[in-house]
């Protein structure tokens, strides 16, 4: 028994010693490898897992590593971290950004989380870096500068941004586009077809997307940018919802339109791309998507029809690709150099021409090669030059608002609530969220 006890004790001691050595070995190896190299390694996260985007981002990062990165003493390690299917949630990103293993640079495929990331401290302002790098507001379109700079700070460099234009399927409508809602409604009724009680073709199904665009076209606005306040329940905002109701009645119920919407097989794409509706609001990236999906669609593009008194080229930004600097980035100065590179005119032009997106800088758009290669972008360039494009809402409550705006639209179009009541309830919900936010974020300078 004595020898057994001795062997067991010896075994436990030796096992404990082995575990201790194994645990410290990686730290030792890291130390020795860090001492040996001068190059700073940056961790760069991007959700670009689509074939075109992934190839482009990897190519841009590799070009940086092989050229400017060598001069800067920086090596970028690109990690593709897609967002969950059917969502724009960056859960993995925010979890990492709040930890000690935060990436150094984050790129998002959507602009929506920007204001809440900034307000909650996930990302840090770039003011000092941008100033040192000589970044000038006049290099950017006013709308893209507003997206990068809010609440008194610069938060991101944009790779591109998106807003919708009015498209029509020329196989269904071959004439001049409608410029007023009366003209649109007349044509839409003409093109709406019901077969055996099922909706088989529609002139327009306005609630598919672009709720903010339709609201703006009717003269409404959910946010007062000058005052920095939500204006959800102002009477003008009910106009577009009442207009939606006319189409609910035309179709014989919201379910009819939803059945048509859900009839297409693709996981990405909508019924306009499949030729089932005459008019729709779509983004500048659609031609690339049509090619990817192998869809053939004859189309023209123009400005959204507007109500009396509303500017002709009105639009609301739907999204964008920002590059941001996490608060817990280990190498912020080096990360900023890479962010500047990715936000430079050459890099954004390379991305935007391949992906058919809108560059945020004048230099990229004014380059003749841009419209030569992307002639369909002229309506977007016209809208930018007209300067009636509205930015996203710079409020950290924006994600809550957008989710519950969808519910409000559902409540109206399923005839559960009147437009005014739905907007009033939404306004109250947003106000409650704001109060909660301000209680826990008294230092936030923005709305």
């Amino acid at each position, binding site marked *: 028994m004595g020898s057994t006890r001795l062997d067991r004790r010896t075994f436990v001691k030796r096992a404990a010693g082995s575990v201790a050595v194994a645990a410290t070995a990686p730290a030792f190896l890291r130390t020795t490898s860090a001492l040996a190299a001068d190059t700073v390694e940056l961790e760069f996260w991007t959700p670009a897992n689509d074939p075109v985007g992934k190839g482009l981002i990897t190519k841009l990062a590799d070009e940086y590593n092989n050229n400017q990165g060598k001069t800067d003493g920086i090596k970028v390690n690109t990690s593709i971290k897609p967002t969950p299917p059917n969502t724009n949630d960056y859960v993995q990103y925010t979890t990492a950004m709040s930890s000690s293993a935060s990436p150094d640079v984050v790129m998002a495929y959507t602009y929506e989380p920007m204001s809440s990331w900034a307000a909650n401290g996930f990302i840090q302002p770039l003011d000092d870096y941008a100033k040192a790098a000589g970044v000038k507001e006049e290099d950017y379109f006013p709308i893209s500068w507003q997206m990068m700079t809010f609440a008194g700070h610069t938060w991101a460099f944009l790779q591109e941004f998106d807003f919708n234009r009015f498209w029509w399927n020329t196989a269904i409508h071959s004439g001049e586009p409608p410029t007023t809602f009366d003209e649109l409604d007349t044509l839409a009724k003409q093109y709406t077809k019901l077969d055996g009680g*099922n909706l088989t073709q529609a002139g327009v199904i306005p609630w598919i997307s672009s709720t903010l665009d339709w609201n703006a076209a009717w003269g409404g606005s959910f946010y007062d940018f000058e005052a920095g306040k939500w204006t959800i329940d102002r009477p003008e905002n009910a106009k577009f919802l009442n207009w939606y109701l006319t189409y609910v009645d035309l179709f014989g119920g919201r379910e009819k339109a939803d059945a048509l919407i*859900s009839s297409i097989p693709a996981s990405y794409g909508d019924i306009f791309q499949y030729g089932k509706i005459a008019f729709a609001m779509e983004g500048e990236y659609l031609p690339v998507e049509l090619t990817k999906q192998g869809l053939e669609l004859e189309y023209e593009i123009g400005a959204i029809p507007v109500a009396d008194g509303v500017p002709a080229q009105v639009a609301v930004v739907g999204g964008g690709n920002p590059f941001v600097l996490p608060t817990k980035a280990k190498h912020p100065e080096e990360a900023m150099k890479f962010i500047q590179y990715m936000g430079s005119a050459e890099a954004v032009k390379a991305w935007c021409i391949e992906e058919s997106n809108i560059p945020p800088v004048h230099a990229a758009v004014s380059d003749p090669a841009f419209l030569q290669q992307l002639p369909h972008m002229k309506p977007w360039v016209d809208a930018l030059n007209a300067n009636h494009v509205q930015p996203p809402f710079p409020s950290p409550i924006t994600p809550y608002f957008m989710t519950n705006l969808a519910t409000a639209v559902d409540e109206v179009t399923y005839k559960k609530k009147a437009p005014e009541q739905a907007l009033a309830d939404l306004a109250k919900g947003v106000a409650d969220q704001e109060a909660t936010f301000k209680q*826990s974020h008294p230092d936030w300078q923005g709305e």
Partner: protein
Amino acid sequence: MALLTGSGNAMPRSTQRSDRPRLARLRRNELLVALAFISPWIVGFCWFQLYPIFASIRYSFTSYNMMQPPVWIGLSNYETLFTGDPLFRKALLNTAIYTLFSVPLDLFVAFCFALLLNMQIPGRAFFRTAFYFPAIIPSVATAILWTMLLNAQGGLLNVALGYIGIGPIAWLTSPSWTMPSLILLSVWGIGPTVVIFLAGLQDVPRDLYEAAQLDGAGPLRLVRDVTIPMISPVILFNLVIGMIAALQVFAQPFIIFGQSTTGVGGNGGPLNSVLMYSVQLYNVAFVQFQMGYAAAMAWILFVIIFALSLLSMRLLTRYVHYE
């Protein structure tokens, strides 16, 4: 009292007294060795489970967004949940409805399948595998598959219903049909429940069936008066486990209804008709960055599940037959 040696003989008194400290040391050493071997599990349990549990209790009384330190706000999160959050009430109601209908349906279908699979038929092994197979398919793949099956125009289910003159039904886009479609989808994952029922059925003594048959019992009487009472502990187990799982359902509603048909936000389906409690908890935590509020929601769910489980065990035990 005499101490025994390893061969079972009593030790002499002089040996017993002098050996006590040595034996106590021996037992202590054995305990230490045992603890050393299970220490990895203990450390892991304490760090990855126990600590997060206590941390989440604390966070539920704070305002916390993961980046700034938590700020104590007392019962404010709980007050807001019960008095000022319509989405919380909606999510709770939806989850209750889902649980109320999906659990009995799943139990009934699983029981029927288990009865069939318990019969001596050719290819029984194949059928047992086939019925369990859906349960091992990843949730995401299942959700995408069912999105296609339940498509209002061209989905397999509506095509089949169309042949008998029913439909088309807007399974995933009508607020009236989204909950039934989710409940229907829950049947897809009854494989484990079937297996547990099957194990219980095979434990029922054959002589009870024979005795009942001698008394003139038909198939239905056999099931009602022999099978069900004998497997009542299994039924209770499956009921409690099924209820716990249903109250925490997340993957299918989150993936299938990820974006509303308006294309803007929303993972609760049209009119939030299938906004589930876990999905709303996810929204609060990871979209709105209100970790303290989400922790409060998590603890309320825990209390509900605990209470319902306890109630089930207390109330239903009288109907359970233990051998």
